[in-house]
C-alpha cells in the first residue's frame, strides 16, 4: 500500500511542476450554465450512510458551474433508504429530484403510475452527453427502462469489471510444498492438505480450509462443476446465455455441484459454521490464523495483507485465478455491475424538467464526471498529463479515500459514470496484482443486467417468486448440510418447482427480457 502510494505521489511531484493547466479551464465556465437565473431544486437523496448535503464541495462547485443548486429536504436522521423512500412517496409530497439507494424498482413501479417523469424525450432533446452514453451502451439503456419503455432514472454506473476473486494463503501453500490449485481436483487436494497437515503449526487440527463471509459465495462454487449461482451482482438471480434466461438452481449442473459441495462439507473442507458465522468470519478466521481460502472482494480482502502483517507471522493472502472446472473452463461468475439500482429521478412535481435534465447531463460531461469522481481540482486532485491524480495529502490522510470523497459529495451514487482510475489510485498492491491476473484471462461470463416487468408480469412474479426462492434455498442448505441427499430429492424438487410455478415465472422474465434487449 505504502509503496504504491509513494510511487504515485512521486509521479505527482515529478510532473505537477511541469503542467499547470488548471487555471486555463476556468475560462470555459459559462459553458455549463443551465440557466441564467440561479435556480434551486429540492432533492431527497438518501444512501446507506449519507443524506444529500448542501455544503458538499462538489455540490457547491456544480452549483457555481451550472447555476443550479440542490437543496436537501431529507431528514438527516434517516437511517434506512427504503423506509425513507416509502415515507416520502406515501406522503405524496415529492421534491423536484428523488435519488439514492435502490430507487430503480420504485421509480419503475411508480413512474408509470405518474409519480415520476419519463425522461426519453428530455434526454433526446436536452441531454446530449447522456444520450451519447446510452447510444454507446444500449444494453444499459435496456436494463434501466421501465416496462413502458421510458427511462425514469439516471443510474449510477460503476466502472471496472472485477469484484470478487479467489484468495488463498500462499504462505501455507509454500509451507506445505503445494502449488496454486489449477483445477477442481487440485483444489480438493490443497484443501485436504490444509485440513490435515497443520499449516498454521499450532499442533491442533483447527484450520478451516475454505470459508466464506457470505454462505452464498460457497454456493457460487457450483461454477466449478459448470453450474450457475447468479447472473447478476445480486445473489440467487437469474442468468442469461445467448438471449435465453434461466435460473441456475434448476439445472443438472447445479445438482452435480451441490452433490460435490455437500461432500466437501462432510469432509470438513468447508467451514462447518458457514451458515451462521456471518460477516465477521473473514476477520476472525484470518486474524486467528485459521482460514485458508475464500472468495471475496479484491480490495477489502487484500487489505488483510497489511493489517495482519505483524499479527500473523508470514501472512500472505493472495488472489489466484479461478481453478478450471470439470469441463476445463475457468469461470469467475461474479463481476461488478455495469449499472446500479441507485441514481436519481425527476418527480412529477418538478416544474423545471428541462433545467433538471440539463443539470443531470452536466455530470456526463468530462468536467462533470471528473467532479463527481475525484472532487475538486487543486483541493483533492491535480491534472497530470491530462489525467486527474489524487494529491498526496488526500491519499495519505487518516480516513480512507472513499470516505473523504463521500464527505465532499464525490462518489456518491448520483447519476454518474464512475472512473475506475479513482479506485486504482488507492488500491493495495495485492489487489492490483490480483486484478491484473484476472484481467489477463477471459473468465467472466455474460452479465444479466435485470429486466423491468410490466404490471401483469409483475403480478405473476410477485405472487410466485419469493415462495419459490425460499423453497430453493431451504433445499439447498439441507443438501449441503447433509440432512437430505440431492440425488434422492431431485425428482421431487423439480416437480415441486414446476407445481409452484417456476415455468410461468421464467416465462414472464423471458418475455420482459426479450422486449427490452432485442431490437
Amino acid at each position: 500500500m505504502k509503496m504504491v502510494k509513494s510511487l504515485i505521489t512521486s509521479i505527482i511531484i515529478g510532473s505537477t511542476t511541469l503542467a499547470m493547466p488548471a487555471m486555463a479551464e476556468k475560462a470555459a465556465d459559462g459553458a455549463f450554465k443551465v440557466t441564467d437565473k440561479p435556480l434551486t431544486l429540492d432533492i431527497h437523496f438518501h444512501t446507506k450512510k449519507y443524506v444529500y448535503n448542501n455544503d458538499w464541495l462538489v455540490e457547491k462547485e456544480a452549483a457555481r458551474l451550472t447555476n443550479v443548486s440542490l437543496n436537501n429536504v431529507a431528514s438527516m436522521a434517516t437511517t434506512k433508504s427504503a423506509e425513507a423512500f416509502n415515507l416520502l412517496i406515501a406522503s405524496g409530497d415529492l421534491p423536484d429530484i428523488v435519488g439514492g439507494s435502490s430507487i430503480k424498482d420504485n421509480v419503475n413501479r411508480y413512474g408509470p403510475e405518474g409519480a415520476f417523469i419519463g425522461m426519453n424525450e428530455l434526454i433526446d432533446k436536452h441531454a446530449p452527453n447522456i444520450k451519447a452514453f446510452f447510444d454507446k451502451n444500449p444494453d444499459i439503456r435496456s436494463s434501466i427502462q421501465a416496462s413502458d419503455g421510458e427511462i425514469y432514472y439516471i443510474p449510477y454506473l460503476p466502472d471496472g469489471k472485477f469484484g470478487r476473486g479467489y484468495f488463498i494463503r500462499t504462505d501455507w501453500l509454500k509451507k506445505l510444498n503445494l502449488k496454486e490449485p489449477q483445477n477442481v481436483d487440485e483444489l480438493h487436494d490443497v484443501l485436504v492438505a490444509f485440513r490435515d497437515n497443520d499449516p498454521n503449526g499450532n499442533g491442533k487440527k483447527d484450520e478451516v480450509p475454505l470459508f466464506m463471509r457470505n454462505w452464498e459465495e460457497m454456493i457460487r462454487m457450483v461454477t466449478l462443476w459448470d453450474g450457475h449461482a447468479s447472473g447478476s451482482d445480486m445473489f440467487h438471480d437469474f442468468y442469461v446465455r445467448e438471449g435465453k434466461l434461466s435460473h441456475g438452481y434448476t439445472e443438472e449442473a447445479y445438482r452435480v455441484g451441490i452433490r460435490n459441495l455437500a461432500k466437501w462439507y462432510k469432509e470438513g473442507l468447508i467451514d462447518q459454521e458457514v451458515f451462521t458465522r456471518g460477516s465477521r468470519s473473514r476477520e476472525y478466521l484470518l486474524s486467528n490464523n485459521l482460514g485458508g481460502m475464500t472468495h471475496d472482494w479484491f480490495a477489502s480482502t487484500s487489505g488483510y495483507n497489511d493489517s495482519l502483517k505483524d499479527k500473523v507471522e508470514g501472512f500472505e493472502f493472495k488472489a489466484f485465478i479461478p481453478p478450471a472446472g470439470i469441463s476445463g473452463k475457468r469461470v469467475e461468475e461474479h463481476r461488478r455491475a455495469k449499472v446500479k439500482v441507485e441514481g436519481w429521478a425527476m418527480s412529477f412535481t418538478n416544474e423545471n424538467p428541462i433545467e433538471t435534465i440539463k443539470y443531470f447531463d452536466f455530470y456526463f460531461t468530462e468536467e462533470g464526471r471528473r467532479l463527481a469522481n475525484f472532487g475538486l481540482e487543486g483541493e483533492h486532485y491535480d491534472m497530470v498529463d491530462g489525467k486527474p491524480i489524487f494529491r498526496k495529502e488526500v491519499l495519505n490522510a487518516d480516513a480512507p479515500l472513499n470516505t473523504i470523497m463521500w464527505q465532499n459529495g464525490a462518489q456518491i451514487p448520483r447519476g454518474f459514470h464512475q472512473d475506475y482510475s479513482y479506485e486504482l489510485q488507492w488500491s493495495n498492491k495485492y489487489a492490483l496484482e490480483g486484478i491484473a491476473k484476472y484481467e489477463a484471462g477471459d473468465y467472466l461470463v455474460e452479465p444479466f443486467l435485470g429486466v423491468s416487468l410490466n404490471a401483469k408480469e409483475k403480478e405473476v412474479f410477485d405472487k410466485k417468486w419469493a415462495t419459490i426462492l425460499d423453497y430453493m434455498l431451504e433445499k439447498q442448505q439441507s443438501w449441503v448440510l447433509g440432512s437430505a441427499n440431492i440425488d434422492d430429492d431431485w425428482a421431487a424438487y423439480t416437480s415441486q418447482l414446476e407445481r409452484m410455478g417456476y415455468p410461468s415465472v421464467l416465462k414472464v422474465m423471458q418475455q420482459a427480457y426479450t422486449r427490452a434487449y432485442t431490437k
Partner: protein
Amino acid sequence: MEDINNSLSTEDSILVKKSKWLVMHLKKEWQLYLMLAPTIIWFIVFLYKPMYGLQIAFKDYSVFKGITSSPWVGLEHFYTLFDNDQFIRAIQNTVMISGASLIFGFPVPIILALMFNEIINPKFKRTAQTIVYLPHFISAVIIAGIVITAFAPSTGVINLMLNAMGYDSVYFLTKPEWFRTIFVGTGIWQEAGFGSIVFLAAVAGVNPSLYESAVVDGASRFQMMYKITLPCILPTILIMLIIRIGNILEVGFEMIIMLYQPATYETADVISTFIYRQGLQAAQYDLAAAAGLFNAVIAFLLVITANTISKRVSKTSLW
C-alpha cells in the same frame, strides 16, 4: 299547560343536575382522568387509527396512489395466501411454537414465584431475583448472539460439553428438529424471571391470617403452598393465561429472524416471519396486511374462547 311547564322544568333541572354533576365529578377526579389520558390517546393513535389502513388487505395497494385510490380486489390476497404451502406451514409452526412455549413456559414463572416465596434469607432472595430478572433487559440481538455462540459447533459451550461427554458436535442452528427446543428454551430463560413478578405480587396479597391459622392447625409448608397460596393466586394465573392465549400467534419475531436459516424454515418459519419475508422485503404490503389481518382475527377468537371457558369454569374473566 301548567303540567307541561312543570315537566319541562323538571327535565331541565335533570339536565342541569346532570351537567352539574359532571362538572363536579371532573373537578373532583381530574387527576384520575389525567392519568388515564395517555393510555387512551395511545390506543386511539396506535391501535384504532391504523385500523383504517386494514382495508389494503382487500386492495391492490400502491403506496403512491394511497389507500383510498388503490383499487379493490376483494379476497384475492387471501386466496393467494391459502394457496401457499409455506403460509399453511407457517400457521402450523406458529401454533406449535406458541403451544410449546405456553405449555412449558407458562408454569415456570409461577413455580419461580412460589419458590421465591419460600426463601427465608432476604439477601439470598434479592440476589436470586435480580439474577433471574436480568436476561429480560438484554436486547434480542444480544440474546441471539449469545445463543448462536453457545450452540456453535466448533467453539460453543454446549458442543464442548457434548464433546467432553464423548458425543460428536451438533450444528444445532441448522437442524430443524432442534429449533423449537432452542427457541422455546431461550424464551423461558429470558422471560420467566420477569414474568414471576406478577405472581409474586399476587402471593404478597394473600391474607397472612390464613397462614397463621394453618400453622395453628399444624399444616406443613408444602400443604400451605398447595392449599392456600395456589388457590389464592388462581384468578391472577387465569387472567395471565387468557392474555397469553391472546398473544399465542405473536411469536417473538426478531429472535426468529436472527436465529433461523433457510435450512430450518421447516420448523422455524412462523406467520410473522413469513409476512416479513414475503410482504415487506418484496414490498407486497397488501399481502402482508392480509396475513396480519388473518393473524389478528384468529387471536381475537382465541381470546374470546379462553375468556368464555374461564368464566364458565372458574368465574374469573377479563370482561
